[in-house]
Structure formats: C-alpha cells, structure tokens
C-alpha cells in the first residue's frame, strides 16, 4: 500500500492508501472533506471536480496516488474563512445553485475557467461546463453567476 503526501488546501497530509483508492474517496473518507461529491460512476457529472496544481480534475477519475506530491484544492479550501471566493459569492448572488449537490464541482470548474479565460462569452461558458451536470438550475443562473464573477474579478484585478 503506497504512502502518499498530498498538500490539500495548503496543508501537507501523509497517509497510507490502497493503490486503487480514488482521489475522491481519499478526500471524502480519509480526510473527511465531504464537499467533493460523487454523482456518477462514469466520469460524466463533474460533482467531484477539484483542482490539482490549480487545474480542474475529476477526483473520481484520478487515483489518490496520482496526487502524491501535488497540490490539491477542494471546495472547502477555496474561500478564506467565511469570506466567499468571488465565484462562490456570485453563485449566491445570481441564484446559481438549488440543491447544492453539483455546486462544489461547478464552482471549482468555473474558477478554473476564469483562471484561463477571464472574460468568457456565454457560449464559451456553456461549452466549458459540458463536463458538469446540474439537474436543478437549468444552467441559466450558473452562466449568469460566472459572468458576474468574471466582471467582479476583472474589476478587482484592474483596481490592483
């Protein structure tokens, strides 16, 4: 059984895991970070999206061992305490979530999009979100939230 050291939300953790332990199970079961969800078994729904070294990955489709030596950020590590990340804040402001189950993956995916494309068009947002399924919102307000966050973040960046 491999021993792995992963920096999760800024803290290094060392654990022994089964070689076939999925990253999502490692996060949920070994670290009790249950914000990362499992919504399917075919790598389709995106409820499990986390960041590895800043880029979004589906934690159901990576082994925990693949995260050895890497930086992993989960939804729990995105906000600074009770201060929400601009993408989280925009999801609340634009009512971009209902049941909340797909939300962590949606938010992590959107943060990655805005890191690479700070002002995406509606089509670009919709295309990017193909790997994240939401059954509640009809996507309308998720798209609005991401546009809102993009504006907020670029204004902030311009002011700095």
């Amino acid at each position, binding site marked *: 059984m491999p021993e792995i050291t992963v920096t999760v939300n800024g803290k290094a953790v060392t654990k022994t895991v089964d070689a076939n332990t999925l990253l999502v199970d490692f996060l949920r079961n070994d670290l009790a970070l249950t914000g990362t969800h499992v919504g399917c078994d075919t790598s*389709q729904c995106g409820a499990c999206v986390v960041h590895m070294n800043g880029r979004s990955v589906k934690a159901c489709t990576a082994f925990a061992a693949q995260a050895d030596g890497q930086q992993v950020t989960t939804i729990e590590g995105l906000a600074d305490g009770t201060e*929400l990340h601009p993408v989280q804040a925009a999801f609340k402001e634009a009512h971009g979530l209902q049941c909340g189950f797909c939300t*962590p993956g949606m938010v992590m995916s959107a943060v990655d999009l805005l890191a690479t494309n700070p002002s995406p068009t509606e089509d670009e947002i919709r295309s990017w979100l193909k790997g994240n*399924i939401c059954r509640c919102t009809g996507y309308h307000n998720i798209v609005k939230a991401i546009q809102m966050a993009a504006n907020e973040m670029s204004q902030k960046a311009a002011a700095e």
Partner: protein
Amino acid sequence: MSDTGIGSAVKRREDFRFLKGIGKYTDDINQPNQTYCYFLRSPLAHATINSIDTSAAERAEGVVAVFTGEHFTEVGGIPCGWLVTGKDEKPMVEPRHPILAHGKVRHVGDPIVAVIAESLQQAKDAADKINIDYGELPAVVDMKKALEGGGTAVHDEAADNMCFDWELGDKAAVDEAFAKAHHVTKLDLVNNRLVPNAMEPRAAIGVYDMATEDYTLVTTSQNPHVIRLLMGAFVLGIPEHKLRVWAPDVGGGFGSKIYHYAEEAFVTWGAKQIGRPIKWVAERSESFLTDAHGRDHVSHVEMAFDENGKALALKTDTLANMGAYLSTFAPCIPTWLHGTLLAGQYTTPAIHCNVKAIFTNTTPVDAYRGAGRPEATYLLERIMSKAAAEMGIGQEEIRRRNFIKPDQFPYQTPVAVVYDTGDYDASMDKALELADYAGFGARKSKSAAEGKLRGVGFASYIEACGIAPSSLVGSLGARAGLYEAATVRVNPTGSVSVMTGSHSHGQGHATTFAQVVADKLGIPMDQVEIVHGDTDKVPFGMGTYGSRSLAVGGSALVNALNKIIDKGKTIAAHLMEASEGDIEFVDGTYKVKGTDKEKTFGEIALTAYVPHQYPIEQIEPGLEETAFYDPKNFTYPAGTYICEVEIDPATGQTRIDKFVAADDFGNVVNPMIVEGQVHGGLVQGIGQAMLEFAAYDENGQLQTGSFMDYTMPRADDVPSFDVTTTVTPCTHNPLGVKGCGEAGAIGAPPAVINAICDALSAYGVDHIDMPATPEKIWRAINAGEKPMAAE
C-alpha cells in the same frame, strides 16, 4: 414592503453551506461502527430464481451477514399509497412488492441478495462469489404486446398484464359532439420514459439502538414522515415513537425521492439483525435501474372542432406503463393527475379519457416533475397546434378562441375539477410581447436565406398543484391525507423556530418560509429558523411534491402564525389594560388603537415565558402553536410558453433560439427562487423533448443506463430564457399562491415539439415523437415531401 418580506428577491440563506462544501447529505454522514451494504441485483428482466448459493460469500473476508428474500417472507411488501378503481368498479391489481426478490425477478435491478461487510469493497467482492440459478422467462416490455398476452405475465395476479382500465368523462356526450364536428384532428403520440436523475444518488443509513429500542433511518427523502408511516406501519411493524426518519440535505428529488424504496426498509431492518449501523449509497447505475422512472405513455388522441375552430370534444386513449411493481403513487399519476387536466385552458365541453395501466418487466414508473400533468398537457397542446395547422388558424388564435375567460371563473371542467381563477389571455399577451412574435416572420425569412428552417411553437398549459383536499383525494383512492403541518415556536427572547412538514431538496424553504414569518411577525429574518426533514423535530408532515410546499405547507405556516398573533393580542391586551378588540398588530408591534400605547413582539414573547403579569385565567403560558392545513381545492397555475427553433436541414441539428415563459403562479414570495424553479423545469422539459429517453431493448435491458448513454441536458444544449409572471391570486389559500415547481417541465415539451413541427411543416411533417433528436429530424426531412419553398 420590507426588503425581506413577501415579494422580495431575498438571497438564499442555505447557500453558504453548499458553496463552502459543508452541506450534509446522507453520504456525508457516518455512524460509529457502521457496516456497508451492497445489493446484488438481477441482470435479467424476467426470470425464476431456482436457487441462490451464498455460502462462499458468507465466508468471504470482512463479511458480516448475507440476506436473501427468504428472510423477508414474514415482513410486509412495499405498499402502494393509492388505490385506483377502474371501469365496472374493478379495483386495480396490486401484486406484492417484496423487499428482496423471492422466487422471481421482474426487472433488471430487482434486488436479490444484500451483502453486509466491514467495507464496501469487501461487500462487492463477496457478492461476486454468490451463485444464482435463474430460469429465464420472456420479458414483457412493449405495452401493446403485453396486453395481447401470449402467456407471459409479469404477475400471476394479472394474466393480461393489466393493472387497471380506467375512464373519466362523458363518453356519450363526446360521441355526440364528434358526430356533428366540422373538423376532427387525430394524433398518435408517445410520451417518452425518463429517468429523474437527481444529482445526489439515493442513499440510506439504518441504525438500531438496543438500549432504547429505537430505530433511525437517515435517507434521501422528499417526505420523511411519509416514509416513517409507510415503512413503519406497513413493512416493518415499527411504531412511530420508535422510528426516526431523518432526511438531511437532499440533492434534488424531482419526484424520485417521494417513494418508499426497498433499500430503506432493508438497512433499517438489517441494523437490528446485525446490531450495527448499515450504510448504503446508490451508484449511478443503480439509480438508473431502481429510482422510479417517469412518463411512458402511448396515446391516441382525437379532437373535434366546429367551423370556427372552437373545440367541441376531446377523446384520449392511453396505455400507461407501471413497470414491474406499483411504486408508492404510481396508479394516481396517469389517472387523477392526468385525466383531470385534459380541459387545459379551454372550454371544451365534452371530454373522455381512457387509461389502461400495464405491468411490464421494467423499472417501476411513478411521479416525475409534473407527474401526469406533462402527459396531459403534451397531448392536448400538441393536438391544438396540429389542429390549428390543419384548419389554417394560427397557434395563438386557436388558443384564444378556446380560452376560458376571466369572467367564467370559478370554472367547472368536464373532467371533475373546478378552476378557481386565471387569466389566460394575460399570460398569452405577455408571452407574445416577450417573444417578439411580431418579428417572427422576418426571422424566419432570415433563417431561410441562410438555408435554415425556423419554427415557432406555443404551449398554453394548466396544472393542478397544492395537492390536495384530503376528503377529495380519499374518495379518489388516496390512502393518506394530503394536508400539511407547521409548528411555530416563539422562543422566550423573541426568536422563532418553525417546524414544517414541507421538505427542501433545493427549493429554498429556509429562505422563502422565513420571509413569510418575517413578513407576518415583523421581525428580522435572522431571528427565524426553518427546521424540516426530521421526524424527531417536526411534529408531522406530508412532504414536498406536486408544487405543494408553499400552497399547502406555507398555508399551514400562516395559520400557525395567526394563532401566535392572536395569543399575543390576549397578552398585549392584559399588559396594556385594554380590551382585546382594541389591539392591533402592525409591523411587529401590538398597539392599542387610537393611543400611543404599544408593546413589541419581543416583549410579548418574553411575557409569555415569564408570566408574572399575565392573563393566566384565560390562557396558558408559552408561545407555540401548530396548524394542520387541509387545502380546499387544488391550485391551478397556468401560462403560455413560446419556443422558437432553428433547424439545419442538412443535419437535423436543432437549436432553440428563443424560449419565453409567461406563468401565473398567483402571488410570489421570492421572485428569484421562482425564476430559478422555472429555469430548471424548462430544461427538464427541453431534455424530454430533445434529448432524454430511457430505452429498453426487447429483453428488458435498459440501454441507456448511465450518463454515457442517457442524454442529460448539459449547459451547451440549452439556451438562456426569458421568463415573466402574471398574477391572479389563488382564491382559497391564505397566501394566494399556486406553486411553481413543475410548470417548466409541463409546458416546455409541447412548445418545443410544436416549434419543430412548425419548422418542418414545409416537408409535410406534422408530428415527431420525443426526443426529437437530430437523427429523427433528419429522417423526417428526408422521408418527407420536397420543401415547398425550394420549388
């Protein structure tokens, strides 16, 4: 209006925990010393179980226990909550639905063996060591063939596979109207089977406390009290005071989490057998096979018109798939939630509806967002648009000619229900304006110039929500009352705890219900806590489905609040030495009319708990009230949707260019949440119309059993929407609300298909079944006539 009161778009209070990833869904909860359960399920649709050998599994590493159907012969089957009586007073056939299959399996996914182990992996590994000897039987899949018989019966009790043969309406009046009709439109259509696919898969944890003899079931439910009742009373024989059912954060339901499922009963029962908690979480493939599916009707419809396009009569013949067993509310969906809506928004004087419900070797079918009403709306709104095209009347015009007018309410339909209020021209007007319908012709020409086909589709839907008056549904076969309960507990320092029987699995009750409390009591929203989902905390409840939370649960809340306000008046009158009739309650303050004497709500609350100076001869201390609200009627939300599509005839690829929804939900408490509900419903409706289909092969294998094969709507499949509301308040509940949860899923499918048929009309295409995939559209174009425009 305050910024948090009724009508304000208050941001949701529940969002923080979901956005932080600190919500608590069933799978996020673990119990000390818990075990894990894996269900070995049937790979065959129809077979006898000749033998089961579990001996190797029982010896496998980590295995705690293995159970089969043999262990459940003394335990009740899963009950059905609605008895439909068919023609000639013949009751429906109601076969036993065992917890674990015994002797026979009836659909792929039927659970046969439960393996409990120290880890999930060990349970799965052990399940691999189980040998089952099946005797495969022919599968009953197609409903028409099922009725023809041929010797294969899903249940011995129904040799012809018919669960019931039900009718509603006046057949003689319909026949008479057809005989003198100027025009008759006919249509055969399929309402495609769907998989609800809430993003959170079902899950259940059973716990038994030997010290207190208490059971706890943590489960993904829309109605924990209903589960407690069904499972406790009918399956396991556990009295209510010994059974807690807790539905924590629930990740979407759409109907699929109303019903009592075998896994819930198993983990609750099993926890006592093994003396340890048992956890089960569905994999998505299990959800596809075992969550109750939706829709699945095959219908023939005919509508008779006079020379002015006024509808004279409607007749429908429908086969409705029940699947392999009767799910909790299955029989009422194609009957009382379907036939009763066939008048739609129209004055059609004579209607007859026949529904034959059929058992097949497929997953059980029950309510899915809209439940019966989408099926009714689809066939009615499709045939209205088809009739309009045949008679050369516009889609708008034929609807307007047939609308029930505002001065005709309350309106008795020929299919049993009485609409309380509505203004159908108003929502039509608003939809037309928002859709820029006047500019459609120009847009169609522009599309044509680019080689594209453009079409527009209308749907004017009605639904019956806020279910329902208990005596009425009782007379129709419901085995439960359909009221709702609320308790308002004013704490000594003036904060308020509300215990509601409604359940939020995304609808935002923590916000909406708190707005109602803040508005009525004049206190800040942060002084209000909404508690739901736990039978140990909430006195009683019937749960959330059928767009009933605010119309029924909200009404119970208002009635409880009124009791609080009234008791407060008695206390205030005593404190201010005034007569009770002179006390008024305004903006959170009790005032003596015509004086400057007043007491705040907080002062009254404190006095109720510190009753030193108190009308103790008249009333008890404390400030807590409960109300049960039984609705006086259904509510009738209605609206008009307009969809505009553009089709590439070379590929059949179809894009929704514009989608407008004008809904009348009565009064609106939180417009932001209401819009969100409409958006979500629309995408489920568009999904049904264009993408989704639960396809079975002739052997009863579900061919679309994962997100790889079942086409869920994704962000790039759907447009943004223009949604708006008109208001005719409901006349019979205290908030004047009607319900908004299902509208989108009801109105969207016919709007989309009508638009596609309009676009394809030049090719002589007058109907296309859902889902209208590019392939189907391409085939229709290529099988059709040459386009008239091309000549």
